[in-house]
């Protein structure tokens, strides 16, 4: 699993404060801890920074590159800011996060990616927003995103398609469709583009204590359909353990076996069978309930585990 560490994110209060103070030590520490935990790239989500982009993006790139060697993923809607950051990259091939299929973005962003030899994350989202169905998202990739790369001679091997994870709290019907989109996107082109998802979006607006389980279970389902890159929290040990269990096919614990069964069921286009679950074990029962919610079989509610 290629994890793009998500923890330098403008929505975090600590990050906001450290940005205000230009606290290089804070970012270097956060970068190092993510890389040590297994992150193979780091997302730098700085927001649009309309006022100070010219200074801030290069500052951030230099700050983080002084501490780690991994690729940096410049995450902003401000293309000028991204370009300012790309100019000062000295280490690994960077990533731009992101373009959409919207005309203006798709016109400009890939050109910047090409100019700076950056990889490019492209969202399967057009002007009309994010389509629910897997097919529509795949169609955007085939009809808009990939053709634009060919048009400007941008290597498809540097394209990363993000079919967009949405929260189970409010957009539940998207959850199983996203899984199908990830499955299908791998066979639509030769060579296949990379696919990455923003895993923790699935639990946005879910109370904090409920988020990790939803993330872990969704991760197992997505790994079953071949997901091997995600923007995620590399410091989540339990999530890392699920990734390891599935990658190593570690059947040594009952819960591990269950996560493997979840992943295998997704791989085989089946639903997890209740026979694979020991409902007497509260942890397994919670995992089962979470699968039902993520498959959109049971409506999500904050207290769905109590049901």
């Amino acid at each position, binding site marked *: 699993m290629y994890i793009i560490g998500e923890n330098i994110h403008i929505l975090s209060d600590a990050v906001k404060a450290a940005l205000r103070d230009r606290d290089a030590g804070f970012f270097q520490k956060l970068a190092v801890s993510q890389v040590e935990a297994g992150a193979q790239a780091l997302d730098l989500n700085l927001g649009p920074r309309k006022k100070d982009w010219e200074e801030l993006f290069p500052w951030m790139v230099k700050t983080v590159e002084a501490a780690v060697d991994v690729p940096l993923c410049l995450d902003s809607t401000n293309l000028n800011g991204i370009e300012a950051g790309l100019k000062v990259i000295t280490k690994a091939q960077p990533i731009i996060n992101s373009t959409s299929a919207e005309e203006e973005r798709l016109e400009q962003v890939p050109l910047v990616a090409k100019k700076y030899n950056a990889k490019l994350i492209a969202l399967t989202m057009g002007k009309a927003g994010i389509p629910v169905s897997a097919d529509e998202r795949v169609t955007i990739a085939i009809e808009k995103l990939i053709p634009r790369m060919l048009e400007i001679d941008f290597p498809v091997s540097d394209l990363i398609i993000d079919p967009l994870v949405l929260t189970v*709290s*409010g957009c*539940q019907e998207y959850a199983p469709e996203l899984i199908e989109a990830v499955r299908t996107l791998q066979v639509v082109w030769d060579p296949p583009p990379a696919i990455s998802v923003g895993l923790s979006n699935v639990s946005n607006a879910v109370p904090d204590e409920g988020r990790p389980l939803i993330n872990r279970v969704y991760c197992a389902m997505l790994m079953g359909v071949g997901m091997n890159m995600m923007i995620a929290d590399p410091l989540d040990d339990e999530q890392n353990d699920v990734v390891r269990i599935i990658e190593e096919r570690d059947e040594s614990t009952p819960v591990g076996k269950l996560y493997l069964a979840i992943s295998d069921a997704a791989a085989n286009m089946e639903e997890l069978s209740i026979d694979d679950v020991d409902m007497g074990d509260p942890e397994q029962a919670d995992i089962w309930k979470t699968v039902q919610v993520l498959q959109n*079989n*049971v*409506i*999500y*509610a*904050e*207290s*769905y585990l*109590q*049901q």
Partner: protein
Amino acid sequence: MSIEIPVDKWPGTVNTVTLGATEADGGTRAKVVTIGGEQSLPFMHFETEMPHSPVIALEMTPSRTDDWSQILLDAWGDVVEDPARWAAAIEAAGADVIVVTFGLTDPAGDPITPDYAVSTVKAVLEASGLPLVVLGPGQADVDNELIVPVADSTKGERLVLGLCEDGNYRTIVASAMANDHLVVGRTPMDVNLAKQLNILMTDMGLPLDRIVMDPTTGGLGYGIEYGYSVMERLRLAALQGDAMTQLPMLVTPGYEAWRTKEAKVGEGVPETWGDWADRGVHWETLTAVSLVEAGADVVVLRHPESLKRVREAIDELMTAAPA
């Protein structure tokens, strides 16, 4: 050419809930109303029989009627000044259930008191044999202040008490549990929140056959499609077996329709809109019939003529097409 109609077989069933209690069951109601029990989407008689017809409630308020359309006040006449007479008129108009909605003030415009609420509900119970829904003004502290003494003083009647909402359900649920009443929980057009409130209320120990849910709707032209979708989604989940969505649904098309400009306002609108009174009744009727199609078990109306029309529509929908 013969067409084969696909037949769904659903694993889930909507809860059956009885509103009101006769003397034999500890209350004083002349008749009770049973709703729910569906095993298919509405009126799919070729799949399963619909055990209980959707029912029609008429709403009255023992508070000031300033925000009621003049059309409604004209239709009811001077009974609106006397809750007992209004209740009797509602029964005479053919409603199945009476909804008594308190506002924040009494008819004189003074802040509403628990004593007034209790005496009013008792007068209504005297005046009519129909089951009652009793709702506070929807402001947490006032709701609790009114509904608790009403619940205490009408023990055993199986009134439907409300409003239970996300931030305010414990007090009303507890007093319903203690006095053999039912509750209605309202959430703002959101399936996740609707289910969450159902979990929270049942968590307190109130049995599922004593809860109905109001997922909230919009009037025709004012978001009814969102309300419709939420109800449809909840009902599909219920039929798929999700226990915390298997509650019968009560919605308030009367309230929603009569606050639309089209129903509420008679002056300064295009002449082509036609007769005001007629338009208002159409608005309410169409809103209500649409929601019945979405799976409503109780529609709460305000105009007696709308009741007739909605009744006719329901009766027709309940008649299975000949094979």
